[in-house]
């Protein structure tokens, strides 16, 4: 069986539609996961009673269970008890919750590097604790956590392929759907592998640029 490139050209519009859905779901989920990350890391930092334990449990639960089972739980399990979400929002919820747990840990790691001496220095300059967090702790923590946070965002993009299993028409779904009728598995999977590779490479490149940009004030 030879590699049929012309076949891929005919399927290009469908693949583009799938790619668009993948990008849309991923971008929205990345934003929401960052929100969860900031909230969770804040709760952990200020040691809010009760909530801190809840956040810790959430992080452990997400990190120690397969994302596939989390997705099935959200999409098939929750409707059984009356909580029905659309296909799209089930996917967004799953990806955001998954990446959010990692973002909490990433940010917490960054905040942990903010030195005690800095806080004392801030106090000596008569900064309030809120000013200290806004002006000093957060900018430093973000720079330290950035590589890990961008990695999580890239992982989220890859994991959006799991949404194929519940039937959301993203890139992998389009490919598998076409294979069921045309049996062109090698062509289709090669095509989406190249697309995913390109996406990850572009994101990694942008991430590198951003890191270099943010490091500039610290270089001699």
């Amino acid at each position: 069986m030879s590699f049929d490139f012309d076949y891929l050209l005919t399927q290009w519009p469908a693949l583009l539609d799938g790619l668009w859905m993948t990008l849309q779901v991923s971008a929205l989920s990345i934003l929401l996961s960052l929100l969860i990350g900031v909230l969770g890391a804040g709760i952990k930092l200020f040691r809010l009673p009760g909530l801190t334990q809840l956040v810790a449990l959430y992080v452990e639960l997400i990190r120690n269970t397969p994302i596939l089972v989390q997705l099935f739980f959200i999409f098939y399990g929750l409707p059984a008890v009356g909580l029905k979400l659309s296909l799209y929002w089930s996917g967004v919820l799953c990806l955001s919750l998954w990446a959010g747990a990692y973002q909490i840990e990433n940010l917490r790691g960054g905040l942990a590097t903010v030195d005690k001496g800095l806080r004392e220095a801030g106090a000596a300059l008569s900064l309030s604790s809120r000013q200290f967090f806004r002006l000093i702790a957060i900018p430093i923590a973000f720079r330290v956590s950035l590589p890990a946070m961008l990695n999580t965002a890239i992982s989220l993009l890859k994991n959006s392929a799991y949404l194929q299993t519940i039937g959301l028409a993203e890139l992998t779904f389009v490919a598998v759907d076409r294979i069921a009728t045309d049996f062109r598995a090698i062509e289709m999977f090669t095509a989406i592998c190249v697309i995913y590779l390109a996406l990850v490479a572009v994101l990694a490149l942008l991430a590198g640029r951003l890191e270099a940009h943010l490091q500039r004030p610290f270089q001699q």
Partner: protein
Amino acid sequence: MEFVIENWGFISKGLLMTLKLALVILLFTTLISAVLGTLATLKSRTLRWAIHAYVELFRSIPLIVNVFFIFFGAPLLGIDLSPFAAVTLGLTLWGSANGIEIVRGGLLSVPRHQWKSAWALGLRPWHIYLYIVVPQSLKAILPAYTGLLTLLVQATSLGALVGVGEFLKVGQIIIERSTMMGGVNPAFTVYAVVLLVYFVICSALTWLSRYLERRLGRQPRLPQPQS
């Protein structure tokens, strides 16, 4: 909860399959990671580049695409793969990409002067590697590698998608059966139980990873794999 008792034999079979899958993949992953991870620390530029390309390739492609590619693609190339073999192959390729990075990082974390001192004492390169460098690198490698094992166990759930009768698949079959025969949909409870069981297994592994990290003292942090 009665479905747990009713289906106990079936459930334990699924769990055993999950563990079998994880162990087989762990074995192959360890072999490949040890060999290629070591080769990646050598001077040859071509070798390093080739291994780097392999690592980046399998870390960039979604795991589910990787497994589907092998499962649906192999028959078209005239290769007959069972679902078990397809999942094992897919997860091993992905797992070793992560494992290679851990082994390479661990070996490189051993200070250069350890090589030089051993060389000055007249040890052969092979002996230096085996008796001086590997034992020290294990301190950095073991916690990260246990973390990878957690991800491997989680990733075996992909078996359910191509028809391996592992734990998640068993859950799906139980849901189908009860919905068709009893008219009730136990999806919520079944998936909650499945989540809980994975949670117990992976938490134990995560705990082991943290314990090793504490026990072995401060080591250079290796890149943490992510699914």
